[in-house]
């Protein structure tokens, strides 16, 4: 029995598809997509280049607005490794399309989209490998482009795109010199700002919900590897064209998103929704240690119509006030929350109980607040949780304290309705 038949027996389940090289007329990449073949020492690859005037509007912003992002905002959005950047003008926008999402040495970026400002234009350069043997040439081109820039703007590039390119460079025996360049990864600030507001912080979600850009006939990300494999088989570039335009949209979205985030930080009261977004901007300031601006945003959030926003703002605000020793300010906020009498919330009650127990040394007051917290816990169905157990402990301790502070047992257990429970 020959090897092929044996392998066939062992590998049941792998469907052998009949060869199909249908290459329909007019579906060749060169017929469908305007681009040029680049040639260098490593061979050839395919380049699609587009120049878009900087004044073009995308996602509510001129593309050129991204050039006006100041160094403060760059640091705030990009974190420490972007500290030394003064402007965004020498940053390269980067997004890859790959043969898989699992990472590892066998995942290849077959399309690397880049964007940068040049003269009055935003230039989009998309490098495409028409087959695996064009990878080295593509990386050679990229290496050149990277040396001309100071760093990257990406969306999840820290965890994915840059790692992957690094792996591709190594696999092709190139030095991955770019891995420590600053990378302004927009995913992290976006999560801070919109994490509470949106179900998903994926770029496509931000695009629709925040930038109000709607793509027509966009290709779902999960299909992209198969599109490429199929293209390699039949050379029909129609779907590849969709991938290229998907990648282009991703890059443009990053440009607007950067402008949007920067704008929100400069003008938090006019450029946010005054609720979740304002809270989120407060979190950005918090992460960067810009406490004054953080407090301003959060104080404004306590006026929000949304309880969750008010609640979160108070949580974060009072954390700062406690740290600064401004307990009275914190207490005002907790009491304001309490005045609304939220039936399922315990956080402010626990904070108040701590305050009365340790700061104002009023165990009786603390005790009555703990009782209220315990009731809220039970209402929220949280009996038996750690939080609940801790409240019980606190209550016991307070009961002892209040006995000793009063010398005589005047304390009578309030009828909270939980005594009959097994606690």
């Amino acid at each position, binding site marked *: *029995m020959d*090897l*092929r038949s*044996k*392998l066939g*027996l*062992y*590998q049941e389940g*792998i469907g*052998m*598809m009949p060869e199909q090289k249908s290459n329909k007329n007019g579906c060749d990449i060169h017929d469908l997509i305007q681009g040029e073949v680049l040639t260098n020492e490593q061979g050839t690859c395919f380049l699609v280049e587009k120049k878009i005037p900087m004044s073009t509007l995308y996602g509510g912003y001129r593309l050129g607005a991204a050039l006006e992002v100041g160094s403060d905002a760059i640091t705030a959005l990009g974190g420490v490794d972007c500290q030394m950047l003064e402007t965004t003008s020498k940053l390269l926008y980067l997004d890859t399309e790959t*043969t*898989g*999402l*699992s*990472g*590892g*040495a*066998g*995942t*290849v970026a077959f399309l690397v989209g880049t964007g940068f400002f040049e003269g009055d234009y935003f230039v989009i350069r998309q490098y495409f490998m028409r*087959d*695996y*043997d064009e990878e080295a040439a593509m990386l050679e081109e990229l290496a050149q482009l990277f040396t001309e820039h100071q760093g990257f703007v990406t969306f999840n590039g820290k965890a994915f795109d840059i790692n992957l390119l*690094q*792996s591709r460079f*190594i*696999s092709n025996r190139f030095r991955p010199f770019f891995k420590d360049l600053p990378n302004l990864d927009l995913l992290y600030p976006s999560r801070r700002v919109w994490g509470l507001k949106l179900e998903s912080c994926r770029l496509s979600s931000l695009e629709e919900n925040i930038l109000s850009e709607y793509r027509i006939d966009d290709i779902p990300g999960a299909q992209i*590897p*198969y599109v490429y*494999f199929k293209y*390699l*088989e039949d050379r029909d570039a129609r779907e590849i064209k969709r991938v290229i335009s998907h990648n282009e949209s991703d890059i443009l979205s990053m440009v607007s998103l950067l402008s949007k985030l920067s704008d929100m930080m400069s003008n938090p009261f006019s450029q946010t929704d005054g609720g979740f977004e304002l809270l989120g901007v407060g979190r950005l300031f918090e992460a960067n240690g810009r406490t004054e601006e953080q407090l301003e945003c959060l104080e404004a959030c306590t006026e929000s119509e949304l309880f969750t926003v008010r609640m979160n703002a108070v949580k974060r605000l009072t954390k700062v006030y406690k740290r600064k020793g401004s307990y009275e300010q914190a207490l005002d906020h907790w009491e304001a929350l309490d005045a609304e009498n939220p039936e399922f919330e315990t956080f402010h009650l626990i904070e108040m109980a701590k305050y009365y127990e340790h700061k104002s040394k009023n165990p009786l007051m603390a005790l009555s607040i703990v009782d209220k917290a315990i009731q809220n816990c039970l209402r929220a169905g949280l009996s038996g949780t750690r939080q609940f157990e801790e409240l019980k402990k606190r209550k016991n301790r307070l009961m002892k304290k209040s006995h000793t502070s009063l010398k005589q047992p005047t304390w009578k257990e309030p009828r909270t309705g939980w005594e009959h429970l097994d606690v």
Partner: protein
Amino acid sequence: MNLGQMLDYFKGSEKMTSNVTSWVEMPAREAVYSDFPEFIDDRIKAALERRGVYKLYSHQASAIEVVHDGNSVVVVTPTASGKTLCYNVPVLDAIIKNEESRALFLFPTKALSQDQTAELHELITEAGVDVKTFTYDGDTPQSARKAIRQAGHIVVTNPDMLHSGILPHHTKWTKLFENLKYIVIDEVHHYRGVFGSHLSNVLRRLKRICAFYGSNPQFICCSATIANPVELASRITDVDMKLIDNNGAPSCAKHIIFYNPPLVNKELGIRRSSMLEAEGIAEALIRNKVQTIVFTRSRLNVEVLVTYLKDIYQGSQEGDRRVRGYRGGYLPNLRREIEKGLRDGSITGVVSTNALELGIDIGALEACVICGYPGTIASTWQQMGRAGRRNGVSAAFLVANSSPLDQYIINNPDYFFGKSPENGLINPDNLVILYNHMKCAAFELPFEEGEKYGVETTQQVLSYMEEAKLVRHVGNRWHWMSDVFPANEISLRSASNENFIIIDISDPKPVVIGEMDRFSAPMLLHEEAIYMHESVQYQVEELDFDDKKAYVRRVNVDYYTDANLAVDLKVIDVFRQDKGGLVQRSSGEVSVSSLVTMFKKIKLHTHENIGSGPVTLPELEMHTTAYWVSLPGELPGMSQSDLQNGLMGISNVLANTAPIYLMCDPKDIQVVHQVRATFTQLPTIYIYDSYPGGIGFSDKLYELHEELFETAEGMVGSCGCESGCPSCVGPLNEFTGTGDPKELTLSLIRLIRQKGA
């Protein structure tokens, strides 16, 4: 009484001696020392001296020198002979001399990795050198991984992690692969059969990656005593190995005592329980404060024996402290505590599965009681090696159970003491395993045109892979072309990647409790089957054959289930054949189709049949390698029914004889017989590997034909029963007709030996 006095007492005790089939006294061995080789860094020498090592044993010095000369080695010495130094010293020395050097240590289990890392840390701290050692396995926190990849000089891991966590991400490990100088593989004998065949392929991939980064590491392997350590290590690593076996470690005088529990029913060949007998011996030892380890084969037996032995002590607290169990499934902290208790003597008795057979440091104990033959000579020596201090005497008792293998070993001590132990066999070119690892290799680095991966037919396999749309041939390379991460689909511990998962649905939240290969699933996971896991009984409620899932629920019943398997076997290809007269032996490739038709419920202890039920599952087909023996079609004086019985007897005997030579588990091979085989038209006995593609067992048996049947004849001939028992030809109720099963079996074996000669 101390151990010496106790042994004298045992020798004089009729109760003991009447059951002892062999009592061998091995003399004490003096240590053979060598000086530290000149080139070793003074700080290492000083550190060792501070730990009481002023000279090396001869084998340690040899290993260090041979490695220093640039060779790959396999060190074969008994348990507790200080083999760790054989690799720790050269590796540390190399890193001290060149800070860029890197080493990779492979241990079969996580527990061993931790143990060895701790020991290395001590030595490094003592030497005051900056050598960073880390374990990198599934438990390593994500946050620590980056630093380990960048800065770890010595990375301690296991084959599974290397396979799925390191090699596929080699671009993150450039420092390691560019500078990899040594690969240490401890417990090489552990990597045999399927596991070894996988490891060999993982190392093929590792070497491809090393070549890419320009390194060419040396291998330092350690093995327990097996028949073919050099061959096994060379096959696993695919490099030439120098053997280091000049053991210089001292040992005390050792008594090895073979104990066969008395017969309670001579006709049926039933003996007293080996567990109770072992318990009796262990109890006597522990009562006399002799530090003792008891080995038993199942986790359940560990728990039972511990319970019995604790009763030696009055007051449960002392019993709990003095007698401990040790097995897989215990948490690492508990294990560390027990290991420490054994070293410092606060624990007098420990009952263990073979978990303590590996090189975990528990110091040396005085006595060892092995309950049931561990299955291989190599394992038995490993376990016996746990007893043996530098001074005084030690003792090891082997207590046999009623199984044919145990009975053969216990009654043929010459075989045990005289024969070299078993062969460690692997088949790295098993097509299923090879193909799966070639997928991983293609993922890791494109294959070059003309590149050879293990087999000459590499390019053909790649063409096949291209048709399966897994790789793309372009330019001079084959590129991985799939979004699948192939390493995740392969488990190194099983041959087929189509495993069934077992899901416990007793609680509201279902839990996956295990997996089982595709070919065993119909036998053991059919609906209503009782499945045992960690000594808990589960009943299979649903077997979803298409999705490969079995749903089970905890039960507590007094029976187990046994499925009837109808096997049909077709020969596809003959590799080798020997027509030595009337009897033919052959080896080749076969297609085995198996169908489970029904199952029986069998009551525990009494083994009564208390019910049965049908099983409707599809027939499974497996291609594997086999060895078969065909008898003449006409045998004078033998009726069809006699022939049938004789073949059945031979099958039962061979199923127990073959593992003696193969260092495999009895379930790794299967024996079937056909009164009139479709292929030969003759009465035929087949032995085939239980793994798709074969692991090399049946091929080896073809070569061992003579020995195999010689042992089989001995096993049946010397059995004390009248006309057959479970210890030789199998339980009598399996046979039909009037002929004496034992006689019939023996006459067929003699025929095979006579004609085959």
